[in-house]
């Protein structure tokens, strides 16, 4: 960890101002940032502690939705009565990630910004275009079991490792951002970016911008499932995960909001996957068709080829379970 100046932000505007500066980062829970600072993957010269800025509340919105303060912890969010009752896919996704100790510290805003677990990204003595632009991608011809099968580029095949954002994507949540240019809202589905030629740019945040909240739309009900496939029964990152909000009317799909983790540089949301289900009665053939659409452009890098059939089968299992629960 390099030396840095540490200060506590007196206000959001001051935090914005400071983090707009060179090599300055905001710290909230710190569970990912400090991990990476110890490895010198992150080397800020200034850290601005935003923990006591107050946007930690979880409160109802006027349209019946829910606003999750960016500084609310993952735990506070997962155990919140309304989240449990109205957005169970979100509770489930959060509870499937990390450990209780980490969720107790990690914040919602920080969780959206967490960085990839790619081995080559976290080892500063290996090439990584994300950490060290132009140095190459160590994973493409290296150990790539955890890596992406969708939306990759020849610069980067890393995955976004989080669970919470996958559920937020399925829910169609919105990220509230505050910064030098004022406030703006970005759909979660557009918040994270694919690597392209700029894998170091992982989301739409501009310097000085700070996430202040996440807004969930009014509850849609339905059967909500978060399924995470992992190599340990707990405390492991997803090989693949599926967030699903499913509703059947008269034996046919009337809602099918699906998002996927472990597959790409961002939570993967392809509206065509859900759309192909709508108006159709559930069947194994239909589930296969949905998987075909999802995986049409998928390709692996050897070690992670298995993610293609695994995703297909997991989607099948989730849809089968959801249809059973909904019926």
């Amino acid at each position, binding site marked *: *960890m390099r*030396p*840095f*100046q*540490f200060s*506590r932000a007196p206000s959001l505007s001051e935090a914005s101002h400071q983090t707009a500066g060179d090599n300055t980062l905001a*710290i909230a*829970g*710190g*569970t990912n940032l*400090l*991990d990476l600072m*110890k490895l010198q993957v992150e080397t800020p010269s200034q*850290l601005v*502690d935003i*923990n006591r800025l107050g946007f930690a509340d979880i409160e109802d919105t006027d349209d019946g939705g829910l606003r999750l303060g960016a500084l609310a912890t993952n*735990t506070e969010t*997962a*155990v919140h009565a309304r989240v*449990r*009752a109205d957005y*169970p896919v979100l*509770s*489930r996704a959060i*509870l*499937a990630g*990390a*450990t*209780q*100790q*980490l969720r*107790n*510290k990690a914040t919602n805003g920080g969780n959206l910004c967490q960085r990839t677990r790619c081995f080559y990204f976290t080892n500063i003595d290996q090439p990584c275009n994300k950490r060290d632009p132009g140095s190459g991608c160590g994973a493409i011809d290296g150990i790539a079991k955890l890596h992406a099968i969708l939306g990759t580029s020849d610069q980067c095949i890393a995955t976004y490792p989080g669970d919470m954002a996958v559920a937020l994507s399925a829910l169609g949540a919105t990220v509230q951002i505050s910064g030098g240019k004022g406030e703006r809202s970005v759909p979660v589905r557009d918040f994270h970016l694919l690597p392209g030629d700029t894998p170091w740019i992982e989301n739409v945040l501009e310097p000085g911008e700070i996430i202040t909240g996440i807004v969930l739309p009014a509850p849609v009900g339905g059967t909500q499932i978060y399924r995470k496939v992992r190599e*340990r*029964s*707990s*405390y492991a990152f997803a090989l693949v995960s599926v967030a699903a909000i499913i509703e059947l009317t008269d034996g046919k799909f009337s809602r099918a909001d699906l998002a996927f983790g472990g597959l790409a540089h961002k939570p993967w949301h392809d509206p065509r996957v859900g759309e192909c289900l709508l108006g159709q009665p559930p069947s194994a053939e239909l589930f296969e068709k949905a998987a075909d659409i999802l995986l049409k452009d998928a390709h692996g890098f050897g070690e992670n080829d298995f993610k293609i059939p695994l995703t297909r089968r997991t989607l099948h299992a989730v849809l089968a379970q959801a249809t059973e629960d909904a019926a």
Partner: protein
Amino acid sequence: MADTITVNGTAHPIPDDPRVSLLDFLRQHIGLTGTKKGCDHGQCGACTVIVNGIRINSCLTLAAMHDGDSVTTIEGLGTPDEPSALQRAFLEHDGFQCGYCTPGQICSATAMLEELGADWPSDASESLEGRIAISGEEIRERMSGNLCRCGAYANIVAAIEEVAAGGQS
């Protein structure tokens, strides 16, 4: 702004170097070595302490972020003369072997029982709502952030189950 951390009831000044983790603060600066460093990256749970009633990994937070906070470590839960119920249960059930993960397991379990009591759901919970029934599976999921390489898990769970059922009090 207070610039002290209260550890087991005693206030200590925060060190000058902001890089000092809460874990290294406890171990190196105030001599409370009961809290262990197993990985320094939030991956093993040996450094688990209770901050303002909530369990966290002390390795993944800076001492400087905790001014005014109240920290309870293994030394604050009980002593050789007056061990806590969980400490006694771990001893009785042989819920440890080498002992290195043990303070983290016990701090974690102490806070975990509170979380269960508050009906916080877990990944293992059948339902997200209502009372959470204590079961081996619930305890195992909730304790999964505390690795034990000796493989004392079965005994740790037995110790926790006994205390959860009101034993060793």
